[in-house]
């Protein structure tokens, strides 16, 4: 029996009607009548236990994982209200399990990561694990440590795709869905193993500008000095703006013009958004920047972002093709998940939907597609020379995961 996937989308205002409609659509999309797992993404206004219970009622209470988001990416465009339900019928040759960990604030990130990985591995001892999917609403600093903790258990180079759902200055709450529970301050994991055919691609499209600079003093995600000067000076110089002006517009500036960490032998820079200006002029970033790192100010255009989307889609497609076998190709259904950094929307604005078109062009117009906006993500970028024992936190990136096919 091949992997069977169905996807349903509803924009009904009532959560119960929305759940029923989305499940019905997803069921109709499937060949198999057996459902083993549900992945649910919804707009914030629909996030409720009622939504999950309605889905459970319609699916027979299969394991469920998902989250809310500021907007959903669908084949029909970007929607701010709605629910997407992905139903999976999983063959014996593929194994998957889900787990969650709560009260992240009371634990160290790495400790949470190890615990989450242990829970995932509890049911997963015989099968070869191949890929992990994580949703977390912890702060982005902790998300990096969470993944590092998971990697201690799952393997240093184990591919994990992470959607970080909580921004450091995010005004709205995000909710995580685990079976029929709506959770906060939690992380959810989904582990896949066996003969799963998948492909991942992740790119950002930002380009370096100006002369290279050296991080001369840093502690974890706080950069104190760059080229021997207080870190904020780099932004003061480039923007010709005072500290107060920078503070006022810093969210936009840091999102549109992040710092890029130069990685030897890699074309793509690793991006870091500054999230706060400290009193002493240090900059707090969403993830670590090592002392001695060579950094540059980064800049993007809409076209460079679209080009990055194209490359991410092609990379995911190439990886997918590389792993597939002939029988799987013909029998298994395919689905594309998109995790996009919300900061890209700031640059792309009304042209954001163009990215969906690019992905559809790459995978085919009828390939089921669902995505959501995140506040940063992690995906394997093959940048092992920078952090040999950690996964890589990206800002501004679009990460594409293709399953099946």
């Amino acid at each position: 029996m091949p992997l069977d996937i169905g996807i349903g989308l509803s924009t009904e205002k009532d959560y119960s009607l929305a759940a029923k409609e989305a499940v019905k659509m997803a069921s109709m999309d499937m060949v198999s009548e057996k459902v083993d797992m549900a992945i649910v993404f919804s707009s914030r206004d629909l996030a409720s236990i009622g939504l999950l219970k309605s889905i459970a009622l319609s699916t027979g209470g299969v394991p469920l994982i998902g989250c809310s988001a500021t907007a959903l990416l669908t084949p029909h465009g970007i929607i701010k209200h709605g629910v997407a339900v992905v139903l999976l019928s999983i063959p014996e040759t593929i194994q998957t399990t889900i787990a969650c960990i709560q009260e992240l604030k009371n634990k160290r990130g790495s400790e949470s990561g190890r615990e989450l990985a242990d829970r995932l591995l509890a049911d997963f001892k015989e099968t070869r694990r191949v890929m992990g999917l994580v949703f977390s609403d912890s702060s982005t600093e902790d998300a990096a440590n969470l993944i590092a903790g998971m990697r201690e258990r799952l393997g240093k180079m184990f591919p994990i795709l992470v959607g970080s759902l909580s921004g450091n200055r995010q005004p709205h709450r995000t909710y995580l869905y685990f079976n029929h529970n709506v959770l906060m301050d939690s992380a959810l994991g989904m582990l896949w193993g066996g003969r799963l055919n998948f492909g991942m691609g992740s790119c950002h499209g930002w380009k370096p500008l100006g002369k290279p600079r050296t991080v001369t003093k840093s502690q974890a995600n706080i950069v104190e000095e760059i080229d021997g000067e207080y870190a904020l000076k780099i932004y003061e110089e480039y923007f010709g703006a005072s500290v107060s002006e920078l503070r006022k517009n810093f969210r936009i500036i840091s999102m549109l013009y992040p710092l890029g960490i130069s990685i030897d032998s890699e074309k793509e820079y690793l991006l870091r958004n500054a999230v706060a200006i400290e009193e002493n002029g240090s900059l707090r970033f969403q993830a670590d920047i090592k002392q001695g790192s060579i950094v540059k100010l980064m800049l993007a255009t809409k076209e460079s972002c679209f080009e990055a989307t194209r490359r991410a889609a092609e990379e995911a497609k190439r990886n997918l093709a590389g792993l597939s076998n002939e029988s799987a190709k013909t029998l298994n259904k395919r689905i594309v998940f998109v995790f996009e950094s919300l900061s890209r929307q700031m640059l792309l604005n009304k042209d954001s939907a163009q990215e969906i078109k690019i992905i559809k062009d790459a995978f085919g117009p009828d390939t089921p597609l669902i995505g959501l906006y995140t506040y940063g993500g992690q995906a394997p970028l093959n940048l092992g020379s920078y952090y040999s024992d950690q996964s890589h936190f990206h800002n501004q990136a679009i990460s594409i995961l293709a399953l099946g096919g």
Partner: protein
Amino acid sequence: MSFLLVIIAVTAAAAMAAILSIKIETVKRLQINLNRLKRSLDEMDEQAKLIVRTDMELNKVQQELDKRTASLATLQKLSRSISGVLEVKAIFKGIKASYLQEFGFDKSCAYLWNEREGNFLEVLSIGYTEEEAGAITQYINSKKHGYWDWLLRERPFSSISKQENKFLKAEEIESVFKTSSFIISPILPAEGSKGILFVGTANPEVAITEGDEELITVLANQISQSLENARLFEKAWTTQQSLEKNVEERTHELTVALNEVRKVSKRKTDFISSVSHELRTPLTSVKGYASILLEEKLGKLPTAAKERLEKINHHSDELVHMVNDLLDIARIESGKTVMKIEGQNLNEIIATVSDLIMIQCKNKNIELKTDIQKNLPQVMADRNQLERVFINLLGNAVKFTPEKGKISLKAKGNDEAVEVAIADSGIGMPPDALTHLFEEFYRVDNAVNQQVKGTGLGLSLVKHIVEAHKGKIWVESAVGRGSTFYFTLPIKQ
């Protein structure tokens, strides 16, 4: 040996000096190149700064432009949804959270001045709990003088404009309304309650621009216009309601009066009918005895007495005629007359009546012309009553037409009725006479009527007969230009 060593050493030193010199030269060149490279990098960095600043400006402009475009589209949608609304509550109900989100806001409330209670009344609340909304209303009313002072300035007040007066403080508003940015715009309809529109966001990442201020001002103006429309509609509606009430009352009064008139009319009819009946018996006796005396069955009468008896007989005939007319009218009015309604050929009736009237015409040398439409449809009528109509109208025509005059009788039909027109070249009537012509006992004041006696019941009877046949009767006339009487009768379907 030692000399040789010295030479070697000197040579080596010279060579080393030469190498060193070359190296120094190389280092110098490298230093120059390095300096050039550093300078190039610095120049490149300066160029990068220009690029970044330009890019930042372009991004800002683009974002503002995109936001304005999207907001204008939303404003258009919102305006369309509230512009046609004519009820105050419904106007504010039209401002939905989704529209606000498209503008970039998540909280809104609005207040209208309540003249009777002397405070601001909440008419809109989005993004607040009931408790929060109540606290804000309380705050607004505790500062109502400040808000009135600001309302009269007719300018928006926001996180960025901050034209504070002694009552309104931006930080205080941000705290009470639980927002990080806000815009308050006055609602100023031409007449009626003035008010306040507040929009804001708790999202510290949303920066309010002058464009937002303009947008919310336009929205407040749109609300003002809708309120004005609603007020005018309310006024028109109230006036209409009052008018309808007046009409209803008047109609009721008229109905009561009409019923009263009908009762009186019925009493009159009954009275006339009763009196006429009562008169007929003695009249018959009077006429009978007069006839007996005139026939001299009881003995020869003196000439003078005979002349008087002839007058009694003549006047008795007139009285009987009048009483019969009155009885006919009363019967028709009360619906007691049994009509034998059936299809009638007007050609036949007109021919019969024309024969009867022809003698009188010849006496006065009057020309009677008839013009009957070919294939005239049959009319639904009682033949005897219809003949009375023709005889009455033609009789009147002969009566009021001088010698050598002309009378015409025309008849034409359509799908529903036949119209008959009887025209004479007589003395005609003044306009004021036309309105009373069909009333009982009304006689036009003219030379003919002064000479010829009449009851004034003929036309009234004609009208009653025509209307009893569901027809209409009317007249056109002018003094010295003759008269034309028209009547219609329904055709046989």
